């Protein structure tokens, strides 16, 4: 073995290309083995979801009348903002409703899957040092990234096949169905290649995933702005990979050429990723390492200081991303007013109030609060990571009580989340003030209040997850993400799902009054806060009683 290594490594140019790729097959098999359950679950999950959507729309809206009324919501600005440019919604069919209303969720999941898979097999591997082990064997420099990309592309191909089959089985036009499936493939390729670049730029897998995730968030927000402005989207809709897939207008115009954009970018970004990877050492990053202080500030030597240090980075990232999103949402306010003027009366009823603008604002506050809740779950997940990586154990070997340790972290987290809510309120307010022609100042206050009033829902999420952290730590993060995912789905298209009330009641974000459309109702505020407090107390109790890092 060792002889082949040294010869291949020192052979100059002709064989060099091959050498940088040697071992790709072995690595690929290894990755497939490691990921067999995870990847299969994603692929089948997305495939099943496509199948479900394709068939569910025929059940949700059986008659043409029902179809007209439900697709109406995707034709108006807020609906377009949530799901897409609204091609063909003036003459809805089931297939148009399927692609116009639901394809976006397939694209988003494909994007997440692709980015996470690439990061997981490249940067996380390097971070844990496993890559060095692998590379010490007969593995070329580019083999890891190549194998990770092959795995991701293959999984995307299968996913696209399943999505196509799902739509075709609902007897939708084959061309349109192929376009929806190809859109999912193209988006997957784009985000896989984006992750190939971010993995080179950031030194931690969390950083690399966050960069790719931020890009997806940005893609979503940009297409929101574009699609909301006009049916079919405006110029903004051409700056987002998610929008590119939707611009194919499946079952309406059936155009293929917009897919050239994501595919073209994928090729360029992949090449960039490979090129960047030759510019750095294993486990190093392109963003250079600076020397820091040799002594700690006194504040760091307290449980709260340590907690702030640990959680600060993540909270700052969420804060910045959400502030930008909030500014953008706020800035859409005038578009909303303009659009409302041109809408037929009955469309407005979709929203909680007769005033489109108020409904929009209440909706935005809720939507942003779901993301702040996500920041909370992610922070608690980080605490679990502190435990499983042994840092909690190490910190607790100093004279720090468990109550002090978790209490400090929770205090920092909750303060951070409240601050983010306030920042989101200010962001939406400023955006609205800047864009609105009348009454900007009043809206600033309303938006700020609307955002901050969502605090009890966020608090309840944090409470529930903390309770689990104390007693059933392995369930904490999964349950937290399910709570957030459910709230997100309910916020986006809950009214369409026709779920039984017992199920919708479980949405923690569904109980607060929709300020500023409705008056503030104090009962849900008190109940949610009660859940939050009970969860925190339970969680702290469990944490002081259970063993640390007992896997």
């Amino acid at each position: 073995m060792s002889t082949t290594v040294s010869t291949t490594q020192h052979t100059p140019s002709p064989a060099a290309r091959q050498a940088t790729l040697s071992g790709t097959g072995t690595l690929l098999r290894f990755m497939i083995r490691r990921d067999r359950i995870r990847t299969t679950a994603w692929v089948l999950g997305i495939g099943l979801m496509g199948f479900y959507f394709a068939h569910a729309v025929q059940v949700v809206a059986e008659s043409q009348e029902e179809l007209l009324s439900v697709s109406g919501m995707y034709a108006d600005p807020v609906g377009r903002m949530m799901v897409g440019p609204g091609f063909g919604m003036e003459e809805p069919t089931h297939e148009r409703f399927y692609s116009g209303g639901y394809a976006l969720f397939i694209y988003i999941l494909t994007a997440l899957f692709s980015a996470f898979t690439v990061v997981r097999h490249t940067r996380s591997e390097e971070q844990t040092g496993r890559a060095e082990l692998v590379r010490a064997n007969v593995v070329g420099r580019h083999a890891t990234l190549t194998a990770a990309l092959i795995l991701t592309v293959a999984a995307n191909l299968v996913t696209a096949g399943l999505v196509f089959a799902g739509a075709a089985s609902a007897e939708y036009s084959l061309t349109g169905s192929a376009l929806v499936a190809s859109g999912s493939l193209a988006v997957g390729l784009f985000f896989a290649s984006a992750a190939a670049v971010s993995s080179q730029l950031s030194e931690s897998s969390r950083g690399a995933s966050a960069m790719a995730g931020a890009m997806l968030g940005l893609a979503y927000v940009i297409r929101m702005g574009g699609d909301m402005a006009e049916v079919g989207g405006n110029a903004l809709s051409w700056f987002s990979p998610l929008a590119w897939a939707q611009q194919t207008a499946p079952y309406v115009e059936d155009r293929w050429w917009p897919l050239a954009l994501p595919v073209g970018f994928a090729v360029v970004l992949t090449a960039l990723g490979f090129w960047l990877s030759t510019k750095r050492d294993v486990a190093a990053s392109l963003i250079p390492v600076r020397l820091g202080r040799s002594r700690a500030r006194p504040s760091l030597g307290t449980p709260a200081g340590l907690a702030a240090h640990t959680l600060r980075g993540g909270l700052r990232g969420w804060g910045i991303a959400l502030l930008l999103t909030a500014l953008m949402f706020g800035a859409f306010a005038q578009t909303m007013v303009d659009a409302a003027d041109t809408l037929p009366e009955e469309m407005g009823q979709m929203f909680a109030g007769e005033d489109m603008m108020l409904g929009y604002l209440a909706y935005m506050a809720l939507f942003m609060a779901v993301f702040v809740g996500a920041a909370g779950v992610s922070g608690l997940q980080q605490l679990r990571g502190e435990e499983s990586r042994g840092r909690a154990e190490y910190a607790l070997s100093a004279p720090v009580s468990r109550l002090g340790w978790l209490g400090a972290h929770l205090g920092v987290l909750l303060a951070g989340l409240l601050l983010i809510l306030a920042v989101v309120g200010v962001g939406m307010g400023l955006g609205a003030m800047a864009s609105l022609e009348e009454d900007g100042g009043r809206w600033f206050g309303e938006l700020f209040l609307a955002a901050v009033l969502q605090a009890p829902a966020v608090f309840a999420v944090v409470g529930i997850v903390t309770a689990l952290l104390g007693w059933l730590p392995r369930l904490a993060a999964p349950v937290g993400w399910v709570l957030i995912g459910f709230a997100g789905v309910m916020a986006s298209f809950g009214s369409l799902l026709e779920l039984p009330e017992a199920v919708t009641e479980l949405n923690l974000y569904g109980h607060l009054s929709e300020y500023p459309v409705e008056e503030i109702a104090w009962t849900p505020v008190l109940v949610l806060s009660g859940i939050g407090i009970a969860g925190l107390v339970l969680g702290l109790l469990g944490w002081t009683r259970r063993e640390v890092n007992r896997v």
Partner: protein
Amino acid sequence: MSENAPVISAVDLVKEFGPVRALDDLNLSIAPGEVHGFLGPNGAGKSTTMRVLLGLLRPDSGTIRLFGRDPWRDAVELHRRLAYVPGDVELWPNLTGGEAIDVFLRLRSRGTGRAFDPTRRDELIERFDLDPRKKTRTYSKGNRQKVALIAALAAEVDLLLLDEPTAGLDPLMEAVFQEVIHEAKAAGRSVLLSSHILSQVEALSDRISIIRSGNIVESGTLSELRHMTRTTIEVQTESPADELASVSFVHAFHTEGSPSTGERSVFEVDGDHVGEVMQRLAGLGVHSIVAHPPTLEQLLMRHYGDDLSARGVSTSTQKKVS
């Protein structure tokens, strides 16, 4: 608590992780000022013992006392008097090494009313040759271990719990480590030093406990342990010493060399029969003789021997006859 009450006392500790019995009736006692070597192979239960001592795990049965108190209940009070170096040091990636050290020193000095003394810290940083301005995520395992060691050794504590503290250190740093442990001992500190590196424990420890599958199989001073084990003898004799091969307390007998250079015999003798062997050798005309005290490898071999023989491997150390 009287002056000589043990710093650590564990009686019949049991700790199970599902089907795995990590600690199986473990008994351990460490006197004040003692450096205690805690020796055992991977998976023997050393880290689990440390974590029970820190009150991070709760034993299923048995009693454990640190300075006479229960580590699960009185963790915070006890942690003021001890410092810990984990087996696998994980540090906060965005802190520098210097900051990480200070965090621990400051957490310790909190509530004591006195600020920590940076001179000791700086001296140790110098001796361990650590760059305290680099972020800990850029550190190798050895450097992370240095950070934890400096944080522990710069603290004014009575007990050091060191879990395989030198596994990632190079030989030069290992020498520094030995020095500072001698200093800690001179300052009256007690040390529990776990390792599977035998030479290190041998050089530093007053007493040694050997742990295997969660149970202490041997405990005592090095000379007590040696007494229970075998001495290796290399001898050159006038007439062949072959007759010794069949003696019941002689093991692993083999010969080297040729008649022209003189015959050399190498064998092991049970500790309490060395005198008898000497008498027999005297009659054979000894040219030269070297006797080695047992190494810790041999101590361990004796306890792992039955594992090995169960797997069909010869327990004899006689492998090199060519």
